């Protein structure tokens, strides 16, 4: 009888090798044969490859875990779903069902939320570029408008004149919480007194009513204490406003920024060690609220958590299309999806799982995407056993920012499916074809090829 075949592998034994790649050449790769009980093979057979898969179950569970971390500690909590993180309708709908209102940052996103059936009063409108049209609509529909700059104050005052009534607004502030880089380009700076100037300006105009404060200190924040500082500064500023200007600050929106269980490039600790549990963030935030709020005062706490809710619910199934040997001896694989679909590959090192057991020891490998561009690298150094063409690689977590920041460059965007809680699978965004991409193009008659 013939022996079982393994692809031939030779690996150089080096000191320092283990550190460089974080795992030994003999370390077995993780195998994933299904997502929520639906086999990878079945998913690809029905919906093609590459394929984005979002788990309804994991999305809901994560939302509930993070939401209850706060409601278990504070009596007045509201989540706003950060549309830009993932604005596929099905994702938004699940989170709205769970009780989140909408957090949007542009006219497009505002329209998207309204189109979903979300009322103006349940939309938080952030962002530095709110067109006059969008602002007017938001004002008429009673949205929570968070002012980013002095020009927006002027715009809103004109709109207040035009519609003949006062408009309720909040202002976005930025501050030093010890996080670098400090996000100081959005809103009004607290430490320089700019935020106070904005309040004065609003009060003197008499056309706007300030009823909230907003801040977003950054994204993928690994330091819970930064939120403690943020909340302390916000509460103190809120009381300063209430005591001196007669406005009532009804809510504090502390933004998003909690990390997901993803691995930032250049960090060697696995996410389970590097990423603090959300309960730790909730603890710091609510502790800070209780030590700074006046007795009996419980303003609404709004959170705009994006990444931490949706990232881990998303997977991308890809297929090994070809392989080659690089001049330096590393193995290279060409997958059918690259940075066109995985924008977050620029800063994350994803968890990579294989759809089957593969014989053979691991060797240093690179995973490229299908683009004719040097930057199209999904993983520039990982240990993989020798993979056959057609092997599926499953990348995760990819639920955050990819379905919104992906680009249509030389390839079509693939199907996105949701594995529902009952293990049925629904297409939530159909794969593109030529007509989608050419629909808006016009070819002048005289240029037509006869």
């Amino acid at each position, binding site marked *: 009888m013939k022996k079982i*075949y393994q692809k031939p*592998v*030779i690996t150089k034994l080096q000191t320092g090798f283990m550190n460089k790649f974080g795992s030994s050449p003999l370390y077995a790769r993780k195998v994933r044969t299904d997502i929520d009980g639906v086999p990878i093979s079945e998913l690809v057979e029905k919906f093609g490859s590459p394929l984005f898969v979002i788990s309804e179950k994991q999305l809901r569970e994560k939302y509930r875990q993070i939401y209850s971390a706060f409601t278990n500690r504070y009596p007045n909590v509201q989540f706003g779903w950060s549309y830009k993180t993932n604005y596929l309708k099905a994702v938004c709908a699940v989170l709205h069902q769970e009780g989140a209102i909408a957090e949007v940052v542009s006219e497009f996103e505002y329209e998207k939320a309204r189109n979903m059936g979300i009322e103006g009063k349940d939309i938080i409108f952030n962002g530095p570029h709110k067109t006059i049209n969008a602002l007017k609509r938001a004002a008429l529909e009673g949205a929570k408008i968070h002012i980013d700059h002095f020009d927006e104050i002027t715009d809103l005052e004109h709109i207040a004149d035009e519609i003949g009534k006062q408009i309720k607004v909040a202002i976005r502030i930025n501050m030093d919480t010890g996080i670098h880089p400090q996000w100081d380009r959005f809103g009004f700076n607290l430490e320089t007194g700019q935020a106070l100037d904005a309040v004065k300006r609003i009060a003197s105009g008499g056309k706007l009513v300030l009823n909230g404060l907003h801040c977003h200190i950054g994204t993928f924040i690994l330091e819970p204490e930064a939120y403690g500082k943020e909340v302390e500064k916000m509460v103190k500023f809120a009381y300063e406003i209430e005591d001196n200007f007669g406005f009532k600050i009804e809510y504090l929106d502390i933004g998003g920024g909690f990390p997901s269980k993803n691995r930032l490039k250049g960090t060697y600790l696995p996410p389970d060690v590097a990423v603090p549990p959300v309960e730790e963030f909730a603890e710091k935030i609510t502790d800070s609220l209780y030590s700074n709020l006046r007795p009996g005062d419980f303003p609404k706490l709004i959170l705009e958590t994006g990444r931490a809710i949706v990232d881990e619910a998303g997977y991308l199934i890809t297929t090994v299309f070809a392989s080659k*040997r*690089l001049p330096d*001896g590393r*193995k290279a694989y060409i997958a059918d999806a690259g940075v066109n679909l995985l924008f977050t590959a620029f800063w994350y090192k994803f968890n990579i799982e294989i759809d089957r057991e593969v014989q053979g020891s691991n060797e240093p490998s690179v995973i490229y995407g299908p683009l004719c561009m040097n930057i199209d690298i999904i993983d520039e150094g990982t240990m993989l056993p020798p993979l056959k063409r057609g092997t599926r690689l499953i990348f995760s977590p990819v639920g955050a920012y990819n379905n919104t920041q992906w680009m249509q460059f030389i390839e079509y965007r693939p199907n996105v499916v949701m594995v529902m809680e009952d293990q049925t699978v629904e297409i939530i965004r159909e794969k593109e074809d030529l007509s989608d991409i050419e629909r808006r193009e016009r070819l002048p008659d005289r240029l037509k090829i006869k």
Partner: protein
Amino acid sequence: MNRIKQLAINEEGFVFDPLTGDSFTVNQTGLFILQKLKEGKETEQIVKELTEEFEVSQEEAERDLIDFVEKLRSYRLL
């Protein structure tokens, strides 16, 4: 000069290059191929022997052999 001939290769797949002092590990198939190369066999012959010894198609064996040889080159063993 075929440096493969000078390599010290043991049964467990431990390979030592006396010229550079580098050491390597190979799996069973890699060991099989290295031994054939050491005996001075040609690609076609090795592919044939691979398909006789292991449960593998000629196409896959051929593809993998090319890849393995390229890897040996990158280590300057060929």
